[in-house]
């Protein structure tokens, strides 16, 4: 990140509809800490030794943090959205204790067979270092 203040989540009083998403511009930023509690939840689900503070976190833990950021970034959302696909490129490997910041941009909106296909770009940073980038492909419900 550039060190500037977070844009914050995109919050509304009513659920975000497909038509409302602004195409091509950053629309939300959310920070998530890879804290010890999160590492414990991960180890409880997937097994293996729990990564300790200061140790490299499993890559999937950053992906889980990205999903939390995604959920928090766009609220409220209509029930029934479907996560259809995902691309990711991995860069640095953050450590437990890092605070990751995710930025979301609507890459593409497309109607196909009466379904609302939404492609949301995500970039996630640990300070200035990029951790991951990719696209979340969803069928938006409304």
């Amino acid at each position, binding site marked *: 990140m550039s060190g500037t203040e977070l844009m914050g989540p995109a919050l509304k009083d009513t659920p975000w509809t497909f038509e409302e998403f602004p195409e091509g511009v950053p629309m939300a930023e959310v920070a998530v800490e890879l804290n010890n509690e*999160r590492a414990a939840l991960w180890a*409880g*689900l997937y097994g293996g030794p729990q990564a300790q503070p200061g140790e490299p976190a499993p890559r*999937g833990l950053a992906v*889980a943090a990205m999903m*939390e950021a995604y959920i928090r970034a766009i609220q409220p959302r209509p029930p029934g*959205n479907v996560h*259809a696909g995902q691309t990711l490129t991995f860069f640095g490997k953050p450590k437990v204790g890092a605070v990751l910041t995710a930025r979301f941009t609507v890459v593409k909106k497309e109607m196909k067979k009466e379904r609302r296909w939404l492609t949301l770009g995500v970039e996630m940073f640990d300070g200035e270092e990029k951790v991951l980038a990719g696209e979340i492909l969803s069928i938006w419900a409304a």
Partner: protein
Amino acid sequence: MSLPDTIAPLELATSPDTAQAYGELTFDFNPIHVDPEFAAQSIFGQCISHGTMALNLAIEACERTFGTAVDLTSLKIRFSRPMPVGQTLTAGGQLTDPEAGTYDIWVTLPDGTRTLEGSITAAPA
């Protein structure tokens, strides 16, 4: 160094408890994952597991297979089938292009149905 030919299988037995725990991990408490009454009225008829629970199982399988010698560098997947809560998921993969470091990866249900499929790239660390 050469890349391993396969991604060693990794299993996750899903349950209402794992759905709740994954919800806590991702702040995703969509009732389709954690509310049996709501899910019973949905097109799925029952609770289904979070898609990225399976994605992260595949990522974890890759990381355990690769250890510190190989880095997972990218992935592209689609969630191809719903995963009823209570089913055991198994992640695996197969090297398809050693020069490019490309693997096909998948997550299956016990009957072999692929619920997630796609590819990853990997490179020596």
